[in-house]
């Protein structure tokens, strides 16, 4: 393999290489790591961040950002918990929570496109307000006493596989197909890569920009529902800082913050790598402070590696 081939190889597969590397490290450190049980645990633990990161990938492909996802998780969790008790219907409660996520996402997208406000600001405002709403509904108190049946989404298993992990995987596959094989998906890349060109090609730029925030809002709400189901409680302070984990997963997964490049497959692996690192630290019994430092390092290193390889190519 000559030099340029090697570079191409690295730039193409650097994520896989990182994944293999950390899996190897983890399995050396602990024989428990490479067990099916541990992997299934990993899936379950990563699913919340993973689902958020799917929505975030859509947003970042269009060169946007969504800081409100963590707060929407909490709000959706509260709504589903309260409505289950009020209506006795799990389905109605879940649909209502998802609808709220969609509406909040729409507001994000609508304001940022209609009034040409940076998404960073709009979603920052939404992050604050949605958290406020989550706290307001019960004046800050968690909602307990959710029915057993509701537990299935977050803590249930199908053929031994955690349901939440399964949802994450299925959504990743579905969204990967949407991004690759639907005109809608391709238009998102065009809008993110060069909105002017997209506009001149007759693509409705504002519609596409708004829609990614709706997607992100729905994904966040879904994550909120799953989290509430897993914890069997609606917790208004849940998922604080989750937006940053999601963004980190997306970026680690190779989606460019400048838009137009990336995909949910990479995001899946990015989130998985982050979980493995957490897992390693847990297996080592180290305090989470070390984890956070190391996680920061890994994200920066992965970005530099990407940049280096990509830059040298051109």
């Amino acid at each position, binding site marked *: 393999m000559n030099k340029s081939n090697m570079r191409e190889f690295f730039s193409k597969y650097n994520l896989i290489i990182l994944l293999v590397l950390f899996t190897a490290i983890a399995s050396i450190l602990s024989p428990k790591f490479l067990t099916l049980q541990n992997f299934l645990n990993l899936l379950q633990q990563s699913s919340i961040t993973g689902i958020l990161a799917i929505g975030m990938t859509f947003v970042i492909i269009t060169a946007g950002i969504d800081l409100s996802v963590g707060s929407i998780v909490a709000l959706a969790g509260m709504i589903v918990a309260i409505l289950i008790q009020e209506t006795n219907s799990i389905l109605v409660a879940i649909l209502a929570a998802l609808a709220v996520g969609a509406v909040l996402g729409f507001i994000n997208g609508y304001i940022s496109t209609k009034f040409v406000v940076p998404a960073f600001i709009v979603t920052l405002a939404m992050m604050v307000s949605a958290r406020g709403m989550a706290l307001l509904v019960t004046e800050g108190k968690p909602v307990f006493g959710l029915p057993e049946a509701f537990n299935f989404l977050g803590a249930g298993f199908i053929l031994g596989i955690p349901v939440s992990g399964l949802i994450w995987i299925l959504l990743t596959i579905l969204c990967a197909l949407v991004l690759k094989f639907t005109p809608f998906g391709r238009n998102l890349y065009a809008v993110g890569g060069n909105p002017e060109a997209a506009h001149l090609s007759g693509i409705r730029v504002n519609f596409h920009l708004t829609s990614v925030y709706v997607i992100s809002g729905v994904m966040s709400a879904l994550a909120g529902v799953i989290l509430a189901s897993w914890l069997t409680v609606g917790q208004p302070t849940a998922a604080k800082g989750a937006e940053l984990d999601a963004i980190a997963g997306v970026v680690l997964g190779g989606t460019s913050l400048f838009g*137009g490049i990336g995909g949910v497959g990479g995001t899946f692996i990015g989130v998985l790598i982050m979980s493995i690192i957490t897992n390693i630290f847990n297996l080592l019994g180290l305090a989470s402070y070390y984890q956070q430092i190391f996680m920061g390092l890994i994200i920066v290193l992965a970005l530099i590696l990407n940049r280096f390889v990509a830059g040298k190519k051109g």
Partner: protein
Amino acid sequence: MSDKGQRNILEMKSISKAFPGVHALKKVDFAVLEGEVHCLIGANGAGKSTLMKILSGAYIKDEGEIFFAGKSVNINNPTDSKKLGISIIYQELSLVTSLSASENIFLGHYPQTARCLVDWRTINGKAQQMIDEMGIEIDVKKPVSSLSIGKRQIVELAKALVAEAKLVVMDEPSATLSSEEFETLVKVIRDLKAKGITVIYISHRLEELFRVGDRVTVLRDGTYVGTKVLKEMDHDELVEMIIGYTLSKEVRKSGEITGEKLLDIRNISTPKLHSVSLAVHKGEVLGLYGLVGSGRTEVLRVIYGADRPQAGTMFFEGKKVQLRSPVDSLKLGIGMVPENRKTQGLIMDLPVWENAALPSLKNFSKFGKIQYGILFNEVQELVKKLRVATPSITTSVKNLSGGNQQKVVVAKWLLKKSHMLLFDEPTQGIDIGAKEEIYGIIKEVANMGYGVLVASSELSELMQVCDRILVMFNGEVAGQFTRDSYQEEAILKCAVTGR
């Protein structure tokens, strides 16, 4: 061309458009016959871009009527014009560079399978076939960012074909093309014509109009000057129509070189240059001519410190110097007016004064504080001296025309009090009126005692402004011509054959 029975595919009648304080269109008429290549030309502010933007739906006209294929039409946004079959290929290419060529070609009209999914096989297959038919080598699966500007243009054209355009508008298509790429373009335009597609061709290179065009419409100061059949007129007549007065070719006095040597490079070699020696004197305009790949640009890069030579020596004002980076050459007083002013020369959002002052802010600082009074005065003076047409020095440079932007780049180095200026393709994408002005500035700068080096692919331009022309061939200096020995054929032959 104007056979009987041939109808107008496009008629724009008494179109007016006003902007607050900016030039506009005044009752402009413009008619294009079906199947012809119609050139549109005019100096800066003549209104041709405004007219085309109205056609594309980017601007909305204040007055007038547009007829397309005989029917009165309303064009309120780009989608409307697309639906009519009008495709505009912009000078600032409107491609999504992160996506593949094939995807760009089908952008907005992806072929779909029965299940409404994107049909990748058709996209890649059809795109490749189209590109192959044009006789150009492009791997359509590669991202556009990996293609040369010329090839990107071809991708744009293919995109227009896919959109089933009846009328293709090309805005300065050749501005960024090499001569071979231009030949391809000429061929593609002929293909379009053969398919019955009408082309509106906007360019400032008059020779090109005569090569590709059937008729030409001239605009001046937002008004319609006239439409002529190109075969029935000559170069000078066209120029007179454009500028509105008779042309006098002012040339610099025969190239006696009196100044002392400013820059002296001896036997410089890099991977692409072989033992190149040249000298630029104070008050001299030295031209560098050569085909693409001859090493013209590389010489500039070495002088500007962007590339480090592997061998050879360089003297500046008599002292031996080694340039490790552009910072070193800046310090010596060498200023570069780059080929691509929008990305390399200017920060488009910043105002005129700030762009001009960028490299010399330190010189205008006292105890770390910028002396705005002095700075503004000097910038103001330069703006006047260079005749930069700008409402004020606080206007963003993005609002200026190409020629005026170029002047701001020049002002930058004059303000920095450089000793030598390098021009790389100084008039690329600049209209003919502003070109003359840029030539004037180059001469003026030389008369002020600066040394000037101009690299250009337009020989006529070099012959007009330079005291001497060096011809590069295959990384070597193949010939030298002084003003009294300028002969176009000889210089061309030297550039092509190396002798």
